[in-house]
């Protein structure tokens, strides 16, 4: 073993037998010997093979066990002498090792503390102690110069505490600039609710599922940024760990969040009633009395298929309807009686009263022909005059080529009321009268250019106005006042000027397959209904696109409950016309998925007629 390079702290007693010197003894730990003697033989450690039991026995039996120490240098046990034990005790107590040492001996000055008149040393003072220092002078002059030049300033009096004064002593309104008005103040912190309480009502505590959901949510998604908790007393409430976080987030919000003024609509949750918009008139008729005054039971109960169309005579006394069973029935509204039943001889597609009050004539489409019927109802003079008018026809000299045949009725038919037969080449879909009552138009279920025909009843003369087909014609109508003619095809409504014989307008309906069309009596507005349950409303003065599109019914065909709409195109130009649904009329039972088939207003009275698939006609007031 190599001697230790570090000098160990001195060990007072150098054992003679220790030949290895002052080295860490653990180097010899695994060897049976410690060092070598002069002959080069190993010096063995004393044998120490005592186990625990031996040690214990020795401890018990040996009276000097307590003063036996192991010498690390040699590995031998040494029994301390009495003096040595005494020394250990003294050292443990913090006393000096030497018994005879007196720590409190009287202090003796080695030099007098009294001030003497003579100096201690006799050395004369230096010369430099009598003359001012040059270095100091230099330094001072530098400082003086710096002060003169203003490089060094006198120290400011230290004052940490900020001074406050009345900052807002002179508030002048002029100091509120536009900047302050434009300033968007940060929204205040949200005030805490019941759930934030340290002792909230039990319903605000989260159940286990809610808690799980809360934990799984993203921090930004959570509705509450804490879990409500209940503590039994104030003492038990711990510190909120995220307090500093929240303050910091608030700070970040204050200076990093973009601010924006948002216009909030302060809408009342109730939808604005149409009547609140300054519209109060139309309530009276449908609203005053909810229900049917009059129930017209059309046919025997076994008959289920039904009236297609209701029409009311212009004078308002008679209504009439027709049905798929091939009859036309005339009703008197006042008495609710069926006045007359005409077998038409085929499925009736459409009926129309002559709008002229002096003529008592009904046009009826039966399969391929249009019948002009004089119902012989009402004023005798009136229907007599009508018959006369029809009979006064004088055939022209030269026969003109016509698209249809005008056939006067046979005697048998005449007795039933039929006056004229207009035979078309194909089935007729619709017939409509001109406002004057002389002309009428019919629509043929054809795809050619002869879909629309215009007839003049007094001259028994017909013509096909169009040279070219422009799609399937659904509906045709005359303008009530001016010489215009509306033709509704599946997508468009075309407006023709009958005098100039030209197309004036093409209205885009934006709906799929126009089903019906109606013109306002003043002629400025058109409403088109379509199979995709829309109502397109055109103002002819404005544009060719719908002024308003209304989504109405869920079903397209037999809508179970007709919606009565009020249409008030105001004569006043300043006020916008309105289209307002006013009332839902109920009453018809739904049969074969068909509800109401047709609705009609009475020309003079505030009455509405509706015919339903259940075989009734109902009158609403």
């Amino acid at each position, binding site marked *: 073993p190599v001697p230790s390079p570090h000098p160990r702290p001195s060990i007072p007693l150098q054992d003679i037998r220790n030949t290895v010197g002052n080295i860490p003894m653990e180097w010899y730990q695994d060897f049976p010997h410690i060092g070598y003697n002069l002959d080069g033989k190993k010096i063995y450690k004393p044998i120490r093979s005592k186990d625990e039991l031996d040690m214990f026995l020795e401890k018990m039996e040996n009276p000097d066990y307590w003063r036996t120490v192991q010498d690390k240098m040699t590995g031998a046990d040494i029994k301390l002498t009495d003096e040595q034990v005494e020394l250990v005790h003294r050292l443990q107590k913090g006393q000096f090792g030497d018994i005879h040492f007196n720590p409190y001996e009287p202090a003796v000055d080695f030099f007098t503390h009294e001030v003497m008149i003579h100096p201690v040393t006799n050395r004369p003072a230096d010369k430099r102690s009598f003359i001012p220092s040059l270095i100091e002078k230099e330094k001072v002059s530098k400082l003086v110069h710096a002060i003169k030049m203003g490089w060094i*300033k006198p120290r*400011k009096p230290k004052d940490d*505490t*900020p001074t406050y004064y*009345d*900052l*807002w002593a002179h*508030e002048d309104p002029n100091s*509120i600039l536009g*900047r*302050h008005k434009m300033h*968007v*103040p940060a929204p205040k*912190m949200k*005030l*805490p609710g*019941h759930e*934030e*309480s*340290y*002792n*909230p*009502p*039990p*319903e605000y505590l989260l*159940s286990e599922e809610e808690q799980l959901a809360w934990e799984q949510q993203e921090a930004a998604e959570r509705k509450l940024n*804490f879990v409500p908790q209940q503590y039994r007393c*104030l*003492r038990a*409430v*711990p*510190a*909120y760990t*995220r*307090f*500093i*976080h929240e303050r*910091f987030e608030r*700070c970040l919000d*204050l200076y*990093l*969040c973009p*601010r*924006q003024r948002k216009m909030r609509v302060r*809408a009342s*949750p109730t*939808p604005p*009633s*149409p009547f609140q918009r300054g519209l109060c008139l139309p309530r009276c008729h449908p609203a005053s009395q*909810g229900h*049917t005054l009059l*129930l017209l*039971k059309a046919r025997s109960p076994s008959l289920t298929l039904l009236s297609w169309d209701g029409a009311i005579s212009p004078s308002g006394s008679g209504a009439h309807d027709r049905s798929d069973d091939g009859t036309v029935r005339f009703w008197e509204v006042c008495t609710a009686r069926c006045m007359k039943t005409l077998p038409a001889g085929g499925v009736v597609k459409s009926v129309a009263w002559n709008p002229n009050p002096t003529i008592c004539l009904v046009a009826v489409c039966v399969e391929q022909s249009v019948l002009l019927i004089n119902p012989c109802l009402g004023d005798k003079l009136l229907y007599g005059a009508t018959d006369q008018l029809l009979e006064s026809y004088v055939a022209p000299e030269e026969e003109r080529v016509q698209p249809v045949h005008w056939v006067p009725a046979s005697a048998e038919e005449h007795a039933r009321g039929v006056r004229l037969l207009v035979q078309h080449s194909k089935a007729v879909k619709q017939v409509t009268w001109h406002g004057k009552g002389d002309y009428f138009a019919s629509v043929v279920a054809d795809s050619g250019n002869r879909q629309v025909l215009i007839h003049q009843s007094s001259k028994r003369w017909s013509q096909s106005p169009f040279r070219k087909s422009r799609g399937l014609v659904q509906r045709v109508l005359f303008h009530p006042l001016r010489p215009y003619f509306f033709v509704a095809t599946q997508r468009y409504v075309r407006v023709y000027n009958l005098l100039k014989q030209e197309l004036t307008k093409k209205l885009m309906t934006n709906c799929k397959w126009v089903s019906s069309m109606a013109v306002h009596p003043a002629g400025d507005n058109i409403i088109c209904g379509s199979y995709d349950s829309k109502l397109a409303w055109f103002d002819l003065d404005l544009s060719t696109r719908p002024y308003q599109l*209304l989504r109405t019914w869920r079903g397209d065909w037999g809508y179970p409950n007709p919606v009565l709409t009020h249409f008030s195109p105001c004569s006043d130009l300043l006020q916008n016309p309105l289209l*307002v*649904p006013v009332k*839902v009329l*109920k*009453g018809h*039972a739904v049969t074969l998925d068909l509800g109401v088939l047709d609705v009609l207003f009475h020309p003079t009275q505030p009455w509405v007629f509706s015919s339903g698939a259940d075989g009734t006609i109902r009158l609403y007031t």
Partner: protein
Amino acid sequence: RRLCILKGIYPHEPKHKKKVNKGSTAPRTFYLLKDIKFLLHEPIVNKFREYKVFVRKLRKAYGKGEWGTVDRLKDNKPTYKLDHIVKERYPTFVDALRDLDDALSMCFLFSTFPRTGKCHVQTIQLCRRLAVEFLNYVIASRSLRKVFLSIKGIYYQAEVLGQPVTWITPYTFAHDHPTDVDYRVMATFTEFYTTLLGFVNFRLYHSLNLLYPPKIDGQADVELKPVEGKEYAMDSESYLEKLSALSASLARVVAPTPEDEVEMDEFPVEGETAEQMDLRKKEQEALEKHKNLFEGLRFFLNREVPREPLAFIIRCFGGQVSWDKSLCIGATYDVSDPSITHQIVDRPRVQQQVVGRYYLQPQWVFDSVNAKLCLPVADYFPGVLLPPHLSPFVTEQEGDYIPPEKLKLLAMQRGENPGDEESEEEEEEEEEEEEDDNDKEEEEEEDESEKEEEVKLKKMEEQKTQSNKALPVKVTAGKLRLEDRQRLEQEQQSEEKRLAIMMMKKREKYLYKKIMFGKKRKIREANKLAAKRKAHDTAVKEEKKKSKKARRA
């Protein structure tokens, strides 16, 4: 960034994000050019630059080891003041009061920070001083209105010159400082807030005729002097501590005279009816009553209750308060004082009870303040299961869920007899449920009514056909149809509503649907809470029954 914080410049959301952001919609913050230009004219920018130079010089001196220079530089550290910025941001005092919420919360938080690291000791001391001054002002003006013990901290709301000022203080525990918080940002905010709060405090003290660096009333000051003559702490420190004890009133510039309290002259405001006047007068009276809620009561705080908030609240409402002398300076009377009326205790049992005083849990003080009346003490005895602590900041609108405790409280405030609370409560609960049901019913009604009418019509038709069949026409006595007016009206309304919805434009309809959705969600939530409560109540009842049975058996 610092400048933006100090000057209160915030980013704006551009109207056309793509236009501003060169076509991309990536999230970026946009400032108004005007605002940034405005920042450039700020004189404090120069101060910041000076400070930067100072830091550079100091670093250099350190590096060279020129200690003399370091000292000199440190002596001449550039400082800046934010006074003009405060004035500029808040041209009127009311503006400043409106923005006081965050300032107060921040100051209260900073004043609880330890004085080691994190931020300057001076800042913390200043915050503490300002916060204590503000508390003293609130006591002197008695402007505290609401308090709330939340799990986050204690919320206070005071009405300062008509402006509600809300702040939150954390519970007094050591903070474990989070690592992901930038303390420099917070320190910048605090820098501004302390300036603001200082000026606001000054103004507020002067509005009450108090001296501004607040001085404790001379008489009280003498009382507060430690009797032993031993200096408790250094003068400046003890001053703040005495102030923060919140137990002494403050010195006034003009000593108040008892005759000062003359009734205010009444100036009728034009266009105000007598009714309104009465209403206002009543309100005023109620407010006055609320302010003097604890007048004449003497409280003693046990050492386990949080001293500062309770002392503050009690003093705000005119009560007298004291605590153990060893707990804090400023105790005015001892536990053994016989005139004590309430002792606030927060331990399950009190060993030696003195007759003639209530032993109460601290929640009583908070609840009483919120209820604006001294609540019955029975619910708040030590060891008793406390009633829930409700938030005073919630004002329930119609249709919102109201916890039954709140209903009870409202009834109590109206002055109704709390004796029949139970039944009332139940009734009200039932009412609530009914209300909820109504909404559902309405929806159903429409369909029902349709069906009913159809049935009626069918009957009528049958009658008619029958009468037709039986040819000898017979007039049967008509049945008087009783019309349910209300029902009809409801039907009418619902129908009108549906028609109106049909009429709405697309945008309006969208909005309407959104509103209705929100409403429905609200109702759903309220229902959920009510159901939860009901379940809880039944569970509690069951348990009670069980325990009763167990006791009997």
